[in-house]
């Protein structure tokens, strides 16, 4: 039996299922993406706790301080002295006060004399930082004029 060739010319593939899937993926990634700049430094390994739930409301003004260790690509601590990760610089605690004073001036220039009452200093300290140094940082913040503090931790599953 001779097979007859039918010249169909150009056949269009059905694009609908592919477009469906692509749109679903696009929607998923759009929803999941978070463009909010959290000012969080990935080198800081926060302590974990079950009660650390994301706050329902954000503070009116926030100053985020990342306090941790310099780490290599594997996440190992390369320098045992903790530093503050501030504006792409690694600053030890004893040299940090001028930066806090600068932040204070910025808050005062923005919102006036009562500005500091609205500011919450959010401390993102590494789980292995000595507590005395965290307290030292709080003390320096108090000396500059900040009085509200929040300690960050990563949420742990119950």
């Amino acid at each position, binding site marked *: 039996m001779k097979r007859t060739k039918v010249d169909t010319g150009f056949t269009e593939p059905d*694009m609908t299922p592919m477009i469906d899937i*692509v749109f679903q993926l696009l929607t998923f990634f759009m929803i999941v993406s978070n463009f909010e700049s959290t000012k969080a430094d990935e080198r800081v390994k926060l302590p974990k*706790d079950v009660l650390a739930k994301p706050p329902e409301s954000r503070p009116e003004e926030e100053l985020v301080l990342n306090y941790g260790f310099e780490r290599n690509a594997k996440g190992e601590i390369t320098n045992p002295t903790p530093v503050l990760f501030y504006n792409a610089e690694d600053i030890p605690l004893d040299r940090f006060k001028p930066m806090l004073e600068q932040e204070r001036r910025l808050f005062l220039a923005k919102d006036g004399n009562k500005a500091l009452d609205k500011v919450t200093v959010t401390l993102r300290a590494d789980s292995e930082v000595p*507590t005395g140094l965290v307290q030292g940082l709080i003390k320096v913040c108090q000396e500059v004029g900040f009085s509200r*503090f*929040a*300690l*960050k931790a990563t949420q742990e599953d119950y």
Partner: protein
Amino acid sequence: MAKEKRQTAGVSKVDIPMAPMIDITFQLLIFFMLNLKIVAPEGDFSINMPISPPAQSETPPPPIPPIKVGLRSDANGNLTQLTIGGRSLGNDDLAFDRLNGEILKIIGRPNNPLTKDVEVEIDADYELHYRYVIQAISKCTGRLDPQTKQMIRYVEKIKFSPPKQPAA
């Protein structure tokens, strides 16, 4: 005639060019995929550290003295002893559960209006790893209801005692 015209209109098909839309869609998809950063959710514990006014001898003491929680450590920053009011609770994970129980005993019941002003003062050694302090703060703050997964709050006011100098 009219019938013929309608039929012709029904047959004609306008091809919408899909290629540009698919191009843009794929570019958007790649953009969002590359921007995706998966981060663990973070929560915070508020602490009460007001700027201390100049010392005044006439300042009345608080009506309820703060609950003193002590955390002692070795030179490596590991917890060696957890105390409440000078009484040892041990140094393991169960010690923190005991602390949670002791706090509940002191306040009587969660959201007790009589003890809502109770304050906890954390007195930690200088070298102690910060994670133990967060654990202690968490256990003083409350506990998670296993059924509802909601926090049952014990104490709202938590403060640190003045920092100590590092051990020689």
